[in-house]
């Protein structure tokens, strides 16, 4: 029964395949499922980032085994499969975006390479490079002028070549110029994300356009056959200097009829573009950076995982629908359509290896993975319709299959979850500290004898106060106080004895604690039993003391007695021509270790 089932994945998911040694470094955007050979056997295509710079491969899994591998030139940003044309058999193409190019594969063989259109180069910059090519300009002048240009327009607005030469030393610049100056200056942008958009029909195998987000803040819609740019949408208003870079793209609708492209951007904004727009509209400013996003095909609702450990859902108009706080940082998201339950649930993978499945704001299932799941997709794999493919951060591959009989408990609505929470808290008992029998006995005793107790206490308190006052007066009279009082010199004394003996080092530090007045004419005198100790300098002259500064004075003292005894040493701070000391302190000397 659905209602009694607890949140355990074992009931719903079958473990189809686990390969802990797949060693694939990838993201959700680099995984796709596709019927590559048009034989109904869906393959798993995954771009492996390898080490992040080398060993980059496009891998195809057929069933549980690795079917083929293709080396890639650069780190792939995204992989997607789509139908380019109407030719039979219906073989889909695979698009791999990396750097500033999109490589199209058909039958897993390179088919076409699309390069993003070059950006405009600043005319001044182009001019400078022309001049250096024709050797009208010194190299150091070029570098200086480029530097000026950089300050004016910003580092990111320069071409790659200029950026490079600015980072080089003067010695390297010459050879760099020689190597590059003959070629035309280009400024390239980078693909940051890629997705697909159906062209005219909604069918599963209909022709789709590629939708590409670029580093220069544009979204391009490409024609699948001719690879011409059908739409070019700028993400931010013309007059804004900050480039808004898309981080995640999602598209729904049909290109020929009406479509919506939602871009989650690096500045934490969610922007929407629709058919006919050349500029995207700011939908909502998110409170944190976006991590992963999906857009529902039915009502264009946007579900987005943010860096502040929340999952938020927005309507297509950008109105916040709900927020769910996640127990850990989110890593990726994937949609799980359940046509038999006419619902789409959303799987969120969390740091630590948890995969939570949400229907709306309600969590319906939890899948535990041994490691954080880095990339997750759901779809048709092999002959199986409902397969969940997971790649963890340590590179292992897991395939789970949703049971045909699986039934998620979707009945509990949003309002239900709210009322459940306090119920559980209600059952918890308030932890009141317990009291012992003894406590109660003492209470009774106090109740009976409170007057006597009060009086005893008051008497003892007064006695204590009197004793303290007496001790204080005595100390003041004998000048035994380490901090002087008003009237006398504003000086503070502290002493330290270092060493194990018989030779000790005595460090006396004096500090003038007044706000502004200087103290002059003081000396430090040591008073001790000369049978016990001998001292290097029994009198130290004190220079003028500046307020606030602490002055350390050091002297050596040697224990000369045969017996392992210790005695007191009195430190007196005296003023010239005054019989009573300003300050005094008694130092209890440590027992010296005769073995040393």
């Amino acid at each position, binding site marked *: 029964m659905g209602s009694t089932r607890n949140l355990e994945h074992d009931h719903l998911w079958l473990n189809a395949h686990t390969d802990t040694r797949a060693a694939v470094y990838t993201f959700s955007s680099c995984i796709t499922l596709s019927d590559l050979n048009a034989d109904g056997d869906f393959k798993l295509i995954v771009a492996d980032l390898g080490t*992040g710079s080398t060993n980059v491969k496009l891998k195809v899994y057929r069933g549980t085994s690795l079917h083929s591998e293709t080396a890639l030139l650069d780190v792939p940003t995204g992989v997607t499969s789509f139908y380019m044309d109407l030719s039979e058999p219906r073989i889909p193409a695979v698009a791999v975006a990396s750097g500033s190019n999109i490589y199209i594969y058909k039958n897993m063989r390179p088919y076409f390479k699309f390069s993003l259109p070059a950006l405009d180069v600043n005319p001044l910059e182009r001019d400078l490079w022309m001049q250096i090519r024709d050797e009208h300009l010194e190299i150091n002048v070029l570098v200086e002028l480029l530097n000026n240009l950089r300050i004016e327009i910003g580092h990111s607005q320069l071409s790659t070549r200029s950026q490079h030469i600015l980072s080089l030393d003067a010695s390297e610049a010459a050879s760099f110029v020689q190597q590059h100056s003959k070629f035309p200056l280009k400024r390239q942008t980078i693909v940051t994300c890629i997705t697909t958009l159906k062209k005219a029909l909604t069918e599963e195998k209909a022709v789709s356009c590629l939708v590409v987000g670029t580093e220069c803040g544009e979204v391009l819609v490409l024609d699948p056959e001719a690879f011409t740019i059908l739409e070019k949408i700028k993400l931010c*208003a013309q007059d804004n200097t900050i480039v808004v870079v898309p981080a995640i793209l999602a598209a729904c609708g049909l290109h020929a009829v009406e479509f919506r492209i939602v871009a989650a951007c690096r500045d934490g904004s969610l922007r929407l573009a629709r058919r006919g727009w050349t500029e995207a509209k700011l939908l909502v400013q998110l409170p944190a950076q976006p991590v992963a996003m999906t857009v529902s095909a039915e009502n264009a609702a946007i579900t987005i995982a943010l860096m502040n450990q929340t999952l938020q859902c927005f309507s297509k108009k950008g109105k916040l629908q709900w927020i769910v706080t996640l127990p850990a940082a989110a890593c990726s998201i994937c949609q799980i359509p359940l046509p038999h339950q006419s619902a789409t649930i959303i799987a969120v993978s969390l740091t630590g290896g948890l995969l939570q499945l949400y229907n709306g704001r309600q969590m319906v299932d939890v899948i535990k993975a041994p490691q954080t799941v880095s990339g997750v997709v759901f779809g048709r794999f092999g002959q199986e319709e409902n397969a969940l493919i997971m790649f963890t951060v340590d590179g292992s591959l897991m395939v789970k299959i949703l049971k045909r009989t699986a039934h998620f408990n979707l009945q509990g609505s949003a309002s239900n979850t709210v009322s459940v929470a306090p119920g559980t808290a209600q059952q918890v008992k308030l932890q009141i500290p317990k009291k012992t029998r003894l406590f109660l006995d003492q209470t009774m005793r106090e109740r009976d004898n409170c007057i006597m107790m009060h009086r005893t206490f008051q008497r003892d308190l007064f006695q204590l106060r009197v004793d303290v006052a007496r001790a204080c007066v005595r100390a003041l009279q004998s000048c035994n106080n380490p901090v002087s009082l008003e009237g006398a010199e504003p000086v503070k004394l502290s002493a330290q004895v270092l060493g194990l003996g018989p030779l000790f080092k005595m460090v006396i530090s004096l500090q003038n604690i007044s706000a502004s007045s200087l103290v002059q004419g003081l000396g430090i005198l040591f008073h001790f039993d000369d049978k016990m100790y001998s001292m290097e300098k029994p009198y130290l002259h004190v220079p003028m003391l500046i307020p606030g500064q602490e002055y350390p004075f050091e002297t050596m003292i040697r224990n000369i007695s045969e017996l392992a005894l210790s005695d007191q040493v009195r430190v007196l701070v005296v003023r010239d021509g005054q019989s009573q000391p300003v300050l005094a302190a008694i130092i209890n000397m440590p027992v010296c270790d005769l073995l040393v």
Partner: protein
Amino acid sequence: METSRSEYSNGIPSRKLIPKPNEPSAKEPELQTVESRNWLLHRHFTRKEFGICKILIQEELERTRGKHEYANYIQGLILRQEGKIQESLDCFQMCHSLDLKNVDYIKQVARSLFLMGLHSLALEAYLEAQQASKVPDWDIYHNLGECWICLGDYTKAKESLRQAVQLGHHEHSYVALADTYKMEGEIQAAIDIYKAALEITFRAAPDSAQLATSLGLLYLQEGKYQHALEKLGGALARDPQCARALLAAGAMMQNHSDYDVALSKYKIAAQSWPESPALWNNVGMCFYGKKKYVAALSCLKRAHYLSALDWDILFNLGLVHMATQQYASAFHFLSAATNLRPAHAGTFLLLAITLRHLDDPDNAAEAFKQAGLLSPMDASIPLNYAVFLESQGDLDGAALQLERFQELAQMSPRLSSELVQTATQLSKVLNRRLMSSNGSKVEGVDGNDKSNMAIEVEAQVRVRNPPVDSSPESLPRNHMADDEV
């Protein structure tokens, strides 16, 4: 060619030239675009995979010799999250030097300065950002407001925050603006801000329980209990675990002597807030209201342990100890309370009654006088004083105080019946004793009356309960506000 020959001239050809010595190649050697891996940095950063992210940043910075805006930017953000503000500032300054016009970099520099406590520098930076930004930016205005608050200029803070609110409709700006008004004591203005905030964020965010709670608390402060209860109820409907709202709602229930409901609220709040002194104080006073003194003492002592210098808790401890007739302990807590708040008449009144029980009439009389001085309009003080004087045999003094009580009682019509009852009883006794001023029967009557009086004094103490309860509960609100900051 001339330039290349000079490269060879020192005998060792430059290493760069070795691969293609005489190849004027048709293709330009590929230069990796600086931004080519920004997307990867961003992805790892947002997934909080800072370890990998740092390695990648290091690679990118080495490749571009530090001239990589985005890598520096992300590094700054990571360092800030790790609490290394100074290092993050260096990163953002690097970004800024690469692109002087980018407002975001200036904002981040300012933010780092703000976090380092250099508010005036941060303010300057934000002003610079404001100038650089072509479109008005709520974030800059908001942060300017925060800087002004820290620098103590509330007028300018309000101005900036108002701009921020108009531009952005962001919850934080509303809260900051309302806080500024609260600090200046303009509660009504703060309430209006919160109302506007709730209206707007309700459209944007249905889960704004915190805002509703803050508004509820402000209403409570203003004494508008109906409004407060509405808002707190709304907050709890949105987030049933919201401890602030639970505590405040519980306190309101407690004020209406609905102790069981209040306790059930506190029970939930205790799950998320087990170390709140205000919470334990209120729980303790709930038990006191239910006459479960041992439980009350346990809870109050925990509250006292959590916040030893809290005046309310000390006062309540004194009160509960009086109820259990532990006068010696009560004296301790009450005297501590008077030391912390020497201007509160109620503490002196309780202290006086305690001292009376501790058989210290001189000090008791002093305490009564002090209480009367501090709160000359409180009717219960002269009545208690009269009872005390009567028990001491000072009948004239007692009559005088009783007269004073009656004067005050006429001015405040809504006086507790218990007080009035005690007063009539006392006046009867006084009349009887004044008439038989030197009779032999006096002593017997005296003894009898005294025991009566003693009970009446206890009754007096309990009359003081409602105000006692309310004061500790007004405090938790302040606590919560503090916690929020």
